[in-house]
């Protein structure tokens, strides 16, 4: 990761109380141009509150949030010029058409012509239905329109709160492609909050894990994959269980409860030798795969490790 770049989003020591309850506790994190940042946490962990603070919907009472160098509280208008977002479900004016809704928001920026509206509409694949009333939209279509309105002002920071709600698998794939393109080609920083870990796994460059208002850790996707040890990738070998007795002694530790499966960690360079050794000793191999760590594993291990008290 290129830490020389100036962050698009700087959250410093944010704490937030709502109705006497501590929702966020001393959150600090940066998001950089061109990266997709996954913000993970169970329901009620403070994801949406963080996003609302970033978008000025809640008051920042301690700490600060800066977007492209502009403080959200002191320089609200400038900060909002760089950000686009969906918060919770993207609720639109049901009595207006999709286009009319986009026009509403376009007018609030100024300098956004009909061309840009066509552009974002096409980008989210809504061109056919853009002149229908929102009342006739499915949840998935509303999500797409939500993304369209967030992109209207060509934001440097795109904030998406549970963006895959209501999307079908094809829609989720489209969204993934769009976000990746935006991030990697146009250097947009994407901040996605979700509790749907499998989706983030496929798209995020970096994740932050939040639980009970505490940011437990931020990790690059590489760090996630290699979580557990520094000894290289995890591999899984599928074998004929009847030949398992031939296993060389140095691979005894690879045995699992399943007699047809061997797993273990090894350096990348040693994998071909390992396969030779297995073949030599007469173990019949059906497949060899590298079993990478998933965000889910990391997430579950961290949230259970730190729940409920957490670290301060």
């Amino acid at each position, binding site marked *: 990761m290129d830490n020389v770049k100036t962050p698009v989003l700087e959250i410093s020591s944010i704490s937030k109380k709502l109705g006497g309850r501590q929702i966020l506790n001393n959150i600090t994190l940066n998001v950089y141009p061109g990266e997709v940042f996954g913000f993970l946490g169970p329901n009620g962990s403070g994801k949406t509150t963080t996003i609302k603070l970033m978008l000025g919907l*809640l008051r920042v009472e301690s700490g600060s949030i800066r977007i492209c160098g502009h403080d959200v509280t002191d320089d*609200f208008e*400038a900060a*909002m010029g760089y950000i686009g977002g969906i*918060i919770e*479900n993207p609720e639109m004016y049901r009595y207006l058409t999709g286009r009319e809704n986009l026009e509403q*928001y376009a*007018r609030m920026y100024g300098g956004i012509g009909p061309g840009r509206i066509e552009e974002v509409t096409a980008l989210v694949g809504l061109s056919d239905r853009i002149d229908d009333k929102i009342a006739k939209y499915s949840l998935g279509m509303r999500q797409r329109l939500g993304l369209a309105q967030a992109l209207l002002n060509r934001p440097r920071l795109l904030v998406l709160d549970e963006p895959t709600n209501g999307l079908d698998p094809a829609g989720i794939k489209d969204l993934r492609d769009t976000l990746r393109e935006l991030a990697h080609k146009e250097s947009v920083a994407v901040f996605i909050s979700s509790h749907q870990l499998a989706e983030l796994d496929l798209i995020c460059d970096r994740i932050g894990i939040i639980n009970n208002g505490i940011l437990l850790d931020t990790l690059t996707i590489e760090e996630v994959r290699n979580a557990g040890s520094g000894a290289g990738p995890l591999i899984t070998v599928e074998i004929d269980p009847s030949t398992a007795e031939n296993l060389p002694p140095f691979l005894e530790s690879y045995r699992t409860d399943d007699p047809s499966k061997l797993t273990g960690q090894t350096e990348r360079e040693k994998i071909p030798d390992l396969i030779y050794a297995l073949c030599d000793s007469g173990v019949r191999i059906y497949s060899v795969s590298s079993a990478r760590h998933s965000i889910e594993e990391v997430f579950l291990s961290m949230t259970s490790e730190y729940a409920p008290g957490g670290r301060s």
Partner: protein
Amino acid sequence: MMKTAAGKGIRPLIANELIKITKQISVRIFLIIFAALLIIVPLATRGLDLIINRISFTEDYDSYLELISLYEENGDFSGAAFYKGRYESYAYFRDLGLGNSSVEASVYLDSLRELYSARDAVEYIQAGRCTYGKLRENDWGQIRIINECYAEAYGLPAAVTDPEGDGNEGTGVPDVPDDKYGEAANADISDYITPEVLVRIYTDISAKIAGIENKVRNFDIRVFYSDRVADEEDNYASEKIQLQSIEEALKISPKDKDLLYTRELLKRSLEQKDSVIFALTHLRDSGSEFGGWEYKTALAVCAASKQAASCVPVDSETFETDPNLSQSFKDYKTYTKALAESEKQAVAARDTGLYSLRRGVVSRDTVDDSSRAAFQSHLAIAVSLSALIVTVIAGTSVASEHGSGTIRLLLIRPRKRTCILASKVLAILIVWGAMLALAFAVTFVMDALLHGFGDLFRSDLYYAFGRPFGVVFILSDIAMLFIDFLSLLPAVSLAFMLSVAVRKTPLAIALPLILNYFMSAMQMICFIAYSEGIKFIAYTPLPYSDLSVFTGTPLDRFIQGGGTGVSGITAGTLAKEILGGTVAGTDFSLLTGVLWMTAITSAFVLLSFVIFKKQQVKS
């Protein structure tokens, strides 16, 4: 790439809000209903007028015949005579081809009706179907006339006029009492009603009827007015002579209280005569329509002048001994103050009336079947209807954004919240303005179509800063529109404030509407409280929920109520007058109301901005 959000102005935001308001189905339905009502209300009231007129014009007088025979069967011949009198008088005008609303009928119908009825009663007695005594027992108004005729012909017997019996009882010597319309009218002269007497009474009544019928046939409005002018001029001359004789008497006893008081009254009366004579002469010379606005205004000028003349306080000793006065007023000071106040009002009313007659500026409610009055009342209805809809729009404005969740996507734009809320306020005002403009245009066209242009373009009479003045129609209408609008602003701004603060649409709409209803009742309560002596209430906002009440002129009181006497300034009458819409001369003022309504509205709007700016969007 979007750099900054600066320099975009509020206009695009207002455009957004206007689209949001006008594209909502519910608002569209309201607006359609509003537009429809603009057409329906004038049509409906016109239709109602026509129906009412038709009912009164096509009254089936023959139904009186049934009533007459009904009363005859029941042996109530006074009642029978009463309806017979009505039937005959209506028939008389009908046969002459004059309607009941003709000038002649307006002047003479009542007296003819009474005389016919009395003559019919006499006929019943002559026919032996009933007796004078029986008629008197169950009198429907004929006895007074019979007794008057008897008194004029014979004088009343001493037994009647002199109940103590120390006069010339039963001699038949004419002894007409001073007040022949008082005592004599109610006297029981049963014993003296002989057939001969009846014939004489019958002849008398018939002569009187013939006299009136003659007047009806030869009626000339100018002569009618001339007679009244002549009456007043005679009055003037005789009062002048009276004054002279009192001056003479005062030379002999210069300290006579009664004489001094009477002198003062006469002096004032003579002072005021100019106005009275001017008003009546104006009627005579212009040949004004009987019962028209000039007629009503002239009569009001006369009444006001007479009140101004009568405002001479008695001295404190007389005040103490007069039970009527000391009962009506707390002390002598209150009494003299009330009199001075009453005189001030009367003089203001008189001057307003004179201005109206001289300049031809019509005072409100003096023109029958006025297209202008219809236009103004229909416009007032339209304004309150529009306020109802605007209250709904204002109450929905911010609350619905919270309700639907759209507030989240609205507030994350590079726009100050103040600016967003201001755009909502302005959009509501623009929609309201458009509704009022539509109301103005449609109502104008509708009333022009239904009533004709008539007096649609006339100026209106106002009274402010101590003098009367006329305002040309369009300015006057805009002023009235603004005053109605201002009366309704607090409710609308409350709806808006609640919409921001409570974020619940039903509450934001319902509470202002309920409060509005409550406040219009409050206005009445305040007027009553004021007349009971709680004067400070006129300086609170409570009585000002409808400002149009405070736009009347001092003249209105005299046109509507015929003026107040000295003892008329009691709590009860004052309350009645204020309720009737005449507040001239009280502590209530349009300016106080305007200031209060502006202040309340500003407070609500300001509060909305403060709350909206600080509000966190938690849900």
